């Protein structure tokens, strides 16, 4: 299981930012929710490593793609919520279109019939 996640790490590296931004399209969320949503929507294939999630969130905030505020979590804990900014939305569009191009190209090379997903 652990080893599995190590392997995913490589792939996640460039895409984690994009997936966080995508997750926030659904609404403001704190770190735990973001990780849970990513895991769930990927049907537990992708396991978000906390070691990269939080630095990534801070990095995105630093680049002004997300903003943050302190609020209360579902369990009434103080939690830091992240919100997608207009700039972040644009970035998400750019990144996801590039991602689609990439996966389609890789799909073509690998000989899969449904390249574009």
């Amino acid at each position: 299981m652990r080893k599995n996640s190590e392997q995913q790490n490589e792939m996640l590296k460039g895409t984690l930012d994009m997936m966080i931004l995508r997750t926030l399209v659904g609404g403001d969320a704190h770190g735990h929710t973001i990780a849970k949503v990513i895991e769930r929507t990927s049907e537990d294939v992708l396991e978000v490593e906390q070691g990269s999630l939080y630095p990534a969130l801070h990095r995105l905030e630093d680049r002004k793609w997300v903003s943050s505020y302190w609020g209360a979590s579902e369990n009434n804990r103080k939690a830091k919520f992240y919100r997608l900014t207009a700039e972040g939305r644009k970035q998400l569009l750019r990144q996801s279109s590039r991602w689609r191009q990439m996966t389609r190209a890789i799909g073509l090379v690998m000989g899969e019939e449904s390249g574009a997903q």
Partner: protein
Amino acid sequence: MSWMRFLHRKRSDSELQDEIDTFLTEETADNEARGMSPDEARRQARLKFGNPQKVRESLWMQNTPQRLAGIARDIKYAFRTLSRTPGFSIIAIVVMALCLGAATSLFTVVRSVLLRPLPFRDPARLVTVYEHFRGGELSYHPVAPADFYDWRSKTHGFEDMAVWRYAGYNLTGVRNELPESVPAVAGSSNLFSLLGVQPALGRDFTEADDQRGSAVVMLTWSVFERRFAGNTKIVGGQIHLDGKPYKVAGVLPSWFKYPDDSIQLWVPYKSDASPEMLQHHDWHGSHVVARLRPDVSLASAIAQVGAVQYQNHLQYPHDPVAEDVVSRSLNEDLAGDVKKPLTLMLSAAGCMLLIGCLNVANLLVARGAARQKEVAIRSALGAQRATLMRGQIAESVLICAAGGVGGILLALGATRWLAKTWKDLPTAQSIHMDGSVIAPACALMFAAALIAGLLPALSTTGKSMLKALETSGRTGSSSVARTALRKSLLTAEIGITVVLLLAAGLLLKSFMELRAANMGCVVDNTLTLQYNLPGKKYDTPEKSNAFNEALLARVRAMPGLRGAALGTTVPGTGYWGTDEFTVKEHPPLKAGEHLPDALTRWVDPGYFSALGIPLVSGRFFASDERIERSYKVIVSRRLVQQYFAGEDPIGKHLHVPGRAHDGAPNLMDWEIVGVVGDTLYQVGKEPKATMYFPILEGRGGATLVVHTATDPLQFSVPLQKQIASLDPELPVSDVLTMNQIIGASLVNASLSATLVLAFAILSLILASVGLYGVLSYLTTQRTSELGIRMALGAQRDQLLQLMLLDGLGPALFGLGLGLVGGVAATRIFQSMLFGTKPLDPVVLAGVIGTLLAVAVLACLVPAWRASRLDPMQALRTE
């Protein structure tokens, strides 16, 4: 952006900790919802999250610029290394502080005096113009007023030209304040507007003020503050100069200190000059300031003035009217005499700074050697050369930064001291440190840090460093290159030290020559004081004579005095006036030939015997040779040698056009009655031909000189009381001993000699410390070799000799280099020397002897230690 991140990294870390807590709580809650026990739920949450410390670390790193962190680490490491050897660090920092302080403070003076523009409007176009007699060496001769008026009216290269001359007044109060004699300047009315100076209070002089007999005065800020307590009511009011009322037109601003800060008052140029004086082409005593037109070159403007002056010269072939003019910028004119000593001192301070850097470099090379293995291991583990060098340079940067801070503090004090002690420094610009000096000082500091750090860093991180791992054995071969580097650093250090020692030796010798110069008269136990009888009260020669004689009689009656004399200018106080003359009994001079001239002094009959000036032939003045019977003159031996070769001058007559007899303007012949020994008008100058006239012809201004049996200063108050009892309103000035007068004229020579000597001694100490360090290091390096030599039968004194020669090698080589460089360098400041030549054998021998002695001493200790090694111990040492 990254800076914000860097500055906020503490806060973002604490936020992260909160976020981690939130995550763990949420996950635990989720797990509990899934049906786990609370403990298990918490455990699983923690497992899932992983190591929170690692998350925090990775955010921290993300928020820290890596390069900066590296530098911070280097500095921290260097700081630890330095504080492990506090002795070394403190010495290195003090050395750098001294060197940087000296360099910064001299640079401040140079910048203020030579480089900074004057505080006047568009100062680059301000020039001074002087007369120049062709044939002699370049001299800046004061200008005659008639010449100036011709220049101003007949040339067009300058926007305007202004003229001024020194003057002096007795300032007396309206309400019985103490009288005071004040230095003043008489300047033409356009001078202030030409310079671009507005009065701080009141008005400028007008054209109408600048007339004979006008009684208008402008105060400088210092006299306004000091004497009139800054009371603005004085503007438009009256003050008394020489007993005459003057109207105060205005007050000059506080920063205005031209031509120097002793000047207290300004009067219009023509106010006390007779029309005849203003028409003289040979009354050389004025200074001309001119503002160049923007569209005219200085050369062509000066050429025009020169042409006008040449016409004047042709018009008056028998008068001393110069053929030509010379000019220099106002800035240079003010800096004039200090430029050379200043440049010399700045170079000396620069040399010392270089030696300081070399010394720190040398010490760092030694430390680098001790860290050889550490460096090798780090580089074997993958450290890049740049990283290793950065680590090494950090040490010298730290030393130089600490030294630089100390140096700047030191320079603050040193600059103030220099500005106060150095008499000739022009004061038109204030000398102080500001950002524009501190910035170059910091640059200098970092340059020094690089020089001191780069050499050792390069040498310890070279390609051969991996050898250090192999050569843990006995060969020590990798250190050969480094030893060579240290030796060449040392050679350079010693070379520069020798140059400094030579310069200091020469300056010191010429200072001592000056000090020992024979004035030609009594110097010890003499006190002088000056007074100036105001012309209004003492309006006849008889009244002046009565005062002078009464004073002399009273003073001579005082106990404890060996003699008293009255003269206008006593030896050592300066050039003052000269007069041209011809010898009546000689054939007339050819047209165009220069008239001979001689210094003019007035003395009382007892002057020569009281001052111990010997009579060569003839006699002194008689006390009845006064007023209408005073057509007698006494000349100095130098005048006889120059103009009466092989003749007896007694009974001959000097024809002095400038000294017509009172009431008989056509009588200009003076009979020579005596010849006296030469005196020096200024220390360091050749004696000049001198004519002495009787002071009893009715002169009002005089210097009283008394020769006392004991400490002369205790007589200053009784003497002033004698004067006050004769005339309570008469101010007395310049109460000084002759030694003080001479000392004051030597202050600059003594200052440059002392400073350069201090720099040289410090350099010598640095060099000997370096020598000692290198040789100690060599001894340690060669311990096992020495052990083998001893085991093979080498004698102890052979080893001593071996090590001594090894250390003296660079010393001798540096000495040779330094002598060559020093002889070349001292030629440059030859003109500052007196009675000394650049190749003075005494100084050369002294320098060589001192350096060798110090070098031998510095080498002896480690060499001795080497020869005392226990061979068994030495062989075992790695």
